[in-house]
């Protein structure tokens, strides 16, 4: 892999720079399609600390959601290793905080694996087991 970058020389470096720029671009725009899908109740927080699909979102939104979930998995796994607990437990603990952030009109999923939408006047959907 390293050897290939060296042999292609400048072109390889340019390509690398282009890829980095592309990555930066998607990060900045990232959140728009995701936020739209979330606001539409298509993408929502799950009790396990990950995002899920209450309905099928646009392809871009799905892609961005997957990226967020990959980042979350890495963070949960890292924290779990440092604290000597399971990554699932970290995810569920994060789910407590993330469910508390669910806004009116957004979808969420609790331990019964059913999708619901937080309606106006309804309290935040935090499960009983959350401290």
């Amino acid at each position, binding site marked *: 892999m390293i050897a290939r970058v060296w042999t292609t020389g400048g072109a390889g470096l340019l390509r690398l720079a282009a890829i980095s720029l592309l990555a930066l671009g998607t*990060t900045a725009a*990232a*959140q728009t399609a*995701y*936020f739209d899908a979330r606001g539409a109740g298509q993408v929502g927080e799950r009790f396990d600390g990950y995002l899920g699909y209450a309905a099928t979102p646009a392809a871009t939104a799905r892609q961005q959601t997957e990226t*967020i979930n990959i*980042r*979350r998995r890495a*963070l949960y796994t890292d*924290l779990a290793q440092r*604290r000597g*607990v*399971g990554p699932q*437990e*970290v995810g*569920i*603990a*994060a789910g*407590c*905080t*993330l469910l*508390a*952030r669910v*806004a009116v009109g957004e979808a969420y999923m609790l*331990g*019964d694996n059913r999708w619901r939408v937080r309606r106006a006047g309804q309290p*935040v959907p*935090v*499960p009983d*087991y*959350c*401290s």
Partner: protein
Amino acid sequence: MKRSILTTMALGATLAAALEGCVNVRTPEKPIEINLNVAIRQEVLVRMQRDVDSLINSNPQAFPQRPSAPATTPGQR
């Protein structure tokens, strides 16, 4: 011949009853499992909450918040 049909029917009924028995045993197990898991984790959840909150707040790329959305206050829960 008659006897063999009867035997087959009896066998079928026994099989159906056995299968039904399996399903009946399985259904109540599921929710109990989930509740037990949550009960076991609660202790860990309490211990992890502060760590997890700082993880969420320091990684906006994994936990994006709309700029207009009001920040979650600790007292909300």
